[in-house]
């Protein structure tokens, strides 16, 4: 029995995936645990293992590499040695069709596929269209055979016909333009309709086009690129956050001199792993979150979810776009464990090798723009999380350390920007959280002892 290999569902929100690469080839022998292919989904590349053994057979009609495939759709089969894959056995329709076309070889009691063929033929004649759309098309004289339907199953519905009719009406409106002007406009890449809007009523002349072209300058048509999967997801999530969350940003300036000293000491000690500032901030935030669980909460319908695990996402800029790998239970890990884990996930994120589960389940996010000389900013909350901490650069500043003694000092200062969702938490607890983060940055011993 052939075993189907389908596009797997790799996360709750996954509906489709991109078939990135076949690791095994058509005809290869496969053992359970072998990597068969690679899927790109929800920002991550995931290697898919075989559960069964057999010979891999990929149909010529299978989805090509690089195509987007719905979960559950068949990609290939595993068959026994010598077994023909299901796509090799001709389908009933094809048999009938062959029999039909070679009349001389037709046996006397040939099957009569007439009724079925008629049904098929009717389907094959053109796209599906609702009766109402067909009626409106007749009324508005629209040729619906060339229209793409917007119904759930691709059916042409009334609004498609009306849109096509409007488009046709707009396109058919004669623009009053001289032949020379039309040619010049075409050469300059200017839409005559745009000229008409600029010079309504009058006949558009060459001078009008040249005037418009001069204003246009070298303003050529923009280059169009399809949005990558990551860009699309980022777009959707940002829109969702902007529409749903009620963000408030608090900023505070903290003295990171001790934090810097801590890092220098660890570096000077010659340890194998030196924690980055992000690692230090991750531990600081994890420690503060254990004391302010409201900042580690989210809202679901009419309920507040207080997450017991503190899973901190780290915003990472990669060639493929923004990714947020998650360090799980950061409060239970030592600083060096956090450093080792984050180095691993960040590297895998940058290499496009990160697994989907490494990107899921975050309860708080840290984003650091310090390396670009940014101080304060207003990060967007990564829903359904409650808050995100923006980390600014560390920069030496002259500050007042003792007002009475009128003493100044040069300290390593850093700005922190906490954006929180006011639906989940109020300003005071959020401010207390940020204040605690400030204390932990300024006095790292407080959390290092735990």
């Amino acid at each position: 029995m052939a075993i189907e290999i389908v596009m797997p569902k790799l996360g709750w929100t996954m509906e489709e995936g991109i078939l990135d690469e076949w690791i095994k080839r058509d005809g290869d022998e496969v053992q359970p645990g072998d990597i068969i292919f690679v899927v790109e989904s929800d920002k991550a590349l995931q290697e898919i293992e075989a559960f069964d053994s057999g010979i891999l057979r990929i149909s010529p009609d299978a989805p090509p590499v690089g195509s987007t495939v719905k979960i559950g759709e068949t990609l290939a089969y595993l068959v026994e040695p010598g077994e023909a894959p299901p796509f090799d056995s001709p389908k009933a329709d094809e048999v009938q069709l062959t029999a039909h076309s070679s009349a001389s070889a037709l046996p006397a009691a040939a099957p009569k596929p007439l009724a079925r063929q008629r049904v098929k033929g009717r389907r094959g004649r053109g796209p599906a269209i609702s009766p109402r759309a067909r009626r409106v098309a007749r009324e508005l004289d629209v040729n619906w055979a060339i229209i793409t339907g917007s119904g759930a199953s691709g059916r042409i519905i009334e609004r498609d016909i009306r849109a096509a009719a409007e488009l046709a009406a707009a396109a058919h409106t004669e623009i009053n333009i001289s032949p020379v002007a039309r040619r010049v406009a075409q050469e300059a890449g200017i839409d005559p309709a745009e000229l008409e809007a600029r010079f309504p009523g009058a006949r558009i002349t060459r001078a009008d086009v040249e005037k418009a072209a001069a204003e246009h300058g070298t303003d050529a048509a923009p280059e169009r690129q399809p949005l990558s999967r990551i860009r699309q997801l980022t777009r959707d999530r940002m829109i969702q956050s902007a529409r749903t969350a009620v963000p408030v940003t608090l900023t505070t300036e903290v003295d990171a001199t001790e934090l810097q000293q801590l890092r220098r000491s660890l570096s000077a000690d010659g340890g194998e792993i030196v924690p980055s500032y992000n690692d230090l901030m991750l531990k600081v935030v994890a420690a503060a979150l254990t004391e302010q669980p409201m900042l580690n909460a989210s809202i679901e319908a009419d309920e507040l979810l207080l997450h017991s695990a503190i899973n901190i996402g780290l915003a990472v800029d990669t060639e493929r776009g923004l990714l947020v790998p998650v360090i799980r239970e950061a409060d239970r890990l030592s600083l060096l464990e956090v450093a080792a884990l984050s180095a691993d996930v960040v590297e895998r994120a940058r290499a496009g090798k990160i697994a989907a589960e490494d990107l899921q389940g975050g309860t708080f996010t840290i984003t650091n723009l310090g390396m670009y000389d940014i101080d304060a900013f207003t990060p967007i909350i990564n829903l359904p999380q409650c808050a995100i901490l923006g980390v600014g650069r560390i920069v030496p500043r002259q500050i007042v350390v003792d007002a009475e003694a009128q003493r100044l000092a040069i300290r390593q200062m850093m700005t922190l920007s906490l954006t929180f969702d006011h639906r989940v938490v109020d300003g005071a607890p959020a401010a207390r959280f940020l204040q605690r983060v400030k204390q932990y940055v300024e006095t790292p011993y407080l959390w290092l002892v735990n």
Partner: protein
Amino acid sequence: MREITYTEAAREALAEQMAVDPSIFVVGEGIGERGGNFNTTLGLYEKYGPMRLRDTPIVERGFVGLCAGAAMTGSRPVVDFMFIDFILDSMGELLNQISKIQYMSSGRIKMPIVLRGCIGIGGAAATHHSGSYYPLFVHIPGFRVATPSNPYDAKGLLKTALTGDDPVLFLEHKLLLNRRGPVPEAEYALPFGQAAVIREGSDATVVALAVMAPKVLDVCDELAKDRLDIEVIDPRTLAPLDMATILESVGKTGRLLIADETFGPCGIGAEISAQVMEQGFDDLDAPIARLNGVHTPTPYSPSLESAIIPDNAAIEKAIRDLVAE
């Protein structure tokens, strides 16, 4: 306007007609002194006594046959079945005599009989007390079938039932009985065969039967927040069925869902769907959708019971799917 319950409104219609028409009498189990299992006759026994509110033994076929004879000879019987499920024991009289006698006598004999009872699923009443059965009666020529969804309709339709010449099934969904609604004190009656557009909209039409009418209205209020503008029609009577109102609405919206708590196969949704296909095909912008309870005997377990009837979430999904088609 004053607000009274569905049961009070229907009882008021019965009391008013009993006062003006001495030929009306009620038979049934527990409808005398007890005032009816669902309070349908509460207080009437004290007023009109045992001759006009006659308790019966548990012999549906017997007392339905008796009432058929009474109706043929000039009385106006009201048979109160309590749960309409019990009507099934009198099918021979109903289908062979009551529905046919006017035709068989060339209209010389009238059949002014009202057959009333509670329909629908709710309250863990189990499968012998949860039926609706109206498609059976809509299928047979000769019956009128009313399924009021609110107190105003209950009173107005029962008034018409008690003044007409035809056998009428007056079916009261048990979950509607205690719902309150405005009912004028002035005399009125609602003609059969006139659907009510209970909510106007342009994105889709939902025909909602009996208990589904208030449920669908609630869902449509929620959907309105997402700018989904749904038209809702309560047919009020299923025989005669006001197809003109439904067709006019579909002409406007192009989309139709029939929401009916009882079974789908050969049901009212199938009938409406077929008629729209026959008379309004070119108005349809999407396949007609039906939402029905599960095709199964009604379980007693409350959790299983609620699982087989379309809840608000199911209604919302059905409407959203229809609009997205």
